[in-house]
């Protein structure tokens, strides 16, 4: 490893713990910190733990299975929950895919979406209705009269579309979506080249 500039080891420790996705084993910290013995690293960690006890600090260092990690102090949990409660919600992959299918193939029934996705979508459908992204458009005149779903006005507003015709077309999505297959990319290039100037 290259020699790194001098920095306060406590500061480095904080930065490492801050960006680490999983608990960091002592050995790993020692390895990255380099030049500090295991005993020294343990002392640094103890030092850090001590500082975190100060009442103006919101996080503390804990040793959990497999290593050290930073967590918010237990007594601050109510505040964190309050933040989380109003935290922007993201759609799961399943919900996104279902929404995309409904947006493009509406009006569409639940069994039809399930055929495309290859899985049942009851839970996801409920989430989307609750989120007011889709709505029932009517019933399909066939056996069982299944409900037909489509996107709501809230859906348009959310994505900033004036109307459904503003949704990118399949072609536009293919041109923009990553990892489109090679063949499509080649076709696209040909199409482009053929365009009149």
């Amino acid at each position: 490893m290259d020699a790194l500039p001098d920095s306060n080891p406590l500061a480095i420790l904080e930065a490492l713990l801050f960006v680490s996705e999983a608990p960091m084993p002592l050995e790993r910290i020692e390895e990255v910190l380099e030049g500090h013995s295991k005993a020294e690293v343990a002392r640094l960690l103890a030092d850090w733990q001590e500082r975190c006890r100060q009442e103006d600090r919101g996080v503390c260092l804990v040793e959990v299975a497999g290593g050290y990690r930073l967590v918010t102090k237990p007594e601050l949990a109510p505040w964190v929950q309050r933040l989380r409660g109003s935290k922007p919600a993201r759609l799961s992959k399943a919900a996104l895919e279902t929404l995309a299918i409904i947006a493009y193939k509406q009006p569409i029934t639940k069994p039809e979406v399930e055929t495309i996705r290859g899985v049942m979508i009851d839970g996801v459908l409920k989430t989307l209705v609750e989120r007011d992204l889709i709505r029932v458009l009517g019933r399909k005149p066939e056996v069982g009269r299944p409900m037909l779903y489509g996107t709501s006005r809230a859906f348009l507003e959310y994505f900033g579309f004036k109307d459904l015709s503003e949704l990118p077309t399949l072609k536009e999505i293919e041109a923009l979506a990553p990892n489109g297959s090679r063949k499509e990319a080649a076709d696209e290039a040909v199409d482009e080249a053929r365009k009149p100037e």
Partner: protein
Amino acid sequence: EIDIYDIPIAKITEEYLDCLSRMQELDLEVAGEFLLLAATLIHIKSKMLIPAEETDGEQADEEDPRKELVERLLEYKRFKDAAMTLEGFESRQQLVYSRPTDPSPSTAEGPLEVSLSELFRAFAAIMQRAAEVSPLEITPEAISVGERMVALLDRLTLESPLPFSALFDGAGTRTLLIATFLALLELLRRGLVRARQSNPEEGITVYRVMEASEGGDGRPA
């Protein structure tokens, strides 16, 4: 890097041909840029070689063909410089790290946060998995919301503020009503008009935001 006021045609042609032959090794985009530039230069040169018509005195008014190229190149250069500036910000920003994000989607009650490209990706993924999905049909828009937007704006430019209900005057059909409403939403979203309701008993008034006015409430004087 050449002086466009003295275009060395031989040199360009030579490099052009050389470039063509090396196309495969080169970054295609760079090569494309060069070819376009070379072609434009040769075009200009050919224009200049054709003797200008001797119409007395009017020559000065004629656009120098090189001027257009200069302008295009300068505009391009401006963005090249801007790209370099962005690169500087990128380097600076790449030295700082934030907390890794939690990959599991939350089921929080808060406002929804989904980007359009996420939706694209989801759909592209689906399309790749289910090749049998028939091509989409999108119903063409019968009434243009864009037209309604223009109409609304025109009207609000002449008389503003207007009561909300007055905006729908003359919108006889359901679709026209919807288009007008969507147009209004879009104008609000773009900040071109504002809606105000001073108290729940009163109706909503809509007024035009003047582009020139700054910070004011947008009412025309």
